[in-house]
């Protein structure tokens, strides 16, 4: 019975490792400039955790195989150093693993969050609210007009609560339900939530950012391939969370200029 358990453990361990090693479920192709750092961090983690996992399962199976069926009348072996030794060793091994992964990942994190965007990065504001994303471009004056939350009116499509009657900078702001960006241009996203927590996730872009109500969050990225990608909300935000998404269109600079002109005319 015990030997059968040992074999089962080995089979399960190998069967679960196969899809990972064979790259059966790959994330979509990376279309960003920083994505390779995130992908190699992911690979490092999978290798490290994978090797530790397989080693632990094989060791467990070996011990089960060897000692299954024994009457328990032999001398019990203890871990060198006893309980203290066991805890100490676990702390050192697991601690080293976690710290190492953290150290390897600092470059990926810093590239997105701790380095400032380029001076000519294009700012786009993103507002997440139940249950849609809306975007705002600053328009010709390059400035975002002030937001007046009490003026937000979905019925008239004043989604950001702008007051163009009194705020001059708001008059040329372009509010859209789709996010279009030029390819190979650094984008500076300025993100806030209108109500509860949401999350902005574009898998191909390797951008995944939670919105915390009350916080103004910022990150920057550059897209390297033209195409249409889905932005999905990945933080449960209420009954319409399943329907909360928008589309990201990466286009050539010329197409983007046309798009922006059309959107400005519709304001």
């Amino acid at each position: 019975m015990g030997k059968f358990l040992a074999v089962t453990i080995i089979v399960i361990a190998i069967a679960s490792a196969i899809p990972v090693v064979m790259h059966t479920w790959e994330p979509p192709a990376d279309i960003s400039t920083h994505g390779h750092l995130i992908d190699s961090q992911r690979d490092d983690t999978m290798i490290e955790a994978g090797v530790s996992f397989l080693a632990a399962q094989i060791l467990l199976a070996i011990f089960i195989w060897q000692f299954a069926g024994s009457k328990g009348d032999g001398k019990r072996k203890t871990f060198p150093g006893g309980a203290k030794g066991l805890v100490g060793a676990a702390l050192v091994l697991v601690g080293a693993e976690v710290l190492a992964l953290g150290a390897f990942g600092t470059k990926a994190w810093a590239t997105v969050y701790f380095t400032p965007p380029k001076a000519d990065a294009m700012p786009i504001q993103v507002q997440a609210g139940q249950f849609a994303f809306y975007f705002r471009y600053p328009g010709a004056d390059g400035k975002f007009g002030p937001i007046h939350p009490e003026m937000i009116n979905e019925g008239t499509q004043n989604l950001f609560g702008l007051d163009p009657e009194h705020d001059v900078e708001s008059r040329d702001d372009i509010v859209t339900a789709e996010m279009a960006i030029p390819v190979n241009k650094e984008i500076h996203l300025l993100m806030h939530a209108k109500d509860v927590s949401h999350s902005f996730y574009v898998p191909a872009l390797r951008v995944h950012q939670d919105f915390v109500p009350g916080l103004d969050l910022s990150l920057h990225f550059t897209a390297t391939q033209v195409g249409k990608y889905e932005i999905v909300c990945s933080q449960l935000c209420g009954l319409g969370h399943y329907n909360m998404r928008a589309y990201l269109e990466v286009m050539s600079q010329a197409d983007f200029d046309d798009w922006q002109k059309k959107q400005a005319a519709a304001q």
Partner: protein
Amino acid sequence: MSMKHVIMAGLVTLAASAVALAGPAGGTVSGKVTYEGTPAKMKPIDMSKEPSCQKMYTTPPTVETVVTGSGNSLQDVVVYISAGAPDEAAPSTAAVFTQKGCRYIPHILAFQVNQEIKIVNEDQTSHNIHPLPKVNREWNKSQPPGTPPISEKYDKAEFIPVKCNVHPWMHGNFAVLKNSHYAITGDGGAFSLANLPPGKYTVTAWQESYGDQSQEVTISGSETKTVNFVFKAKPY
């Protein structure tokens, strides 16, 4: 037949036709609702997050908070008797509010206190209708495609904005009224409230962005009184 009989018959016929031609019992208040000034631009609606609705339009539909018509007229204005008429029991027919193309049809639905309303979903996506009353009971209901109509009613008179929790651009109104004397203006802004017994009435016109205006009118018989409303449009 004697001359006297002929004259009597003639007079009776004349009297009868006069009664018949007098029309419905009571008077009528009719008129037009127009605006002056420049109304705000009605923005187009981007439904890209719901492709099943977006593909139903060749050009995107526009916001309907201020709908203008020919001759500076205002459409979707509710004109009703707000005072002077007794409260009436609700009719047995239901008023129907349809969700189609991710919009509410009609944009404003007028019905009476305790009258049944039926909310229908003709789209391929789920909606979650959420009327926002201040005096009536607030509720919201999910309605997947292909499910039966939702049946509801309101027991207090009120103008209630309606939104969809899932689709932020969907916006409509319920006008819950106390009697059957109401009309919603169409293109041209005309309205007609008939069958008004003699009395002093307050006629009110309500527009969702411009508020309401009231005028007093007295009906003494079966005449038609003209009452016009002019709203000041707001450019923003």
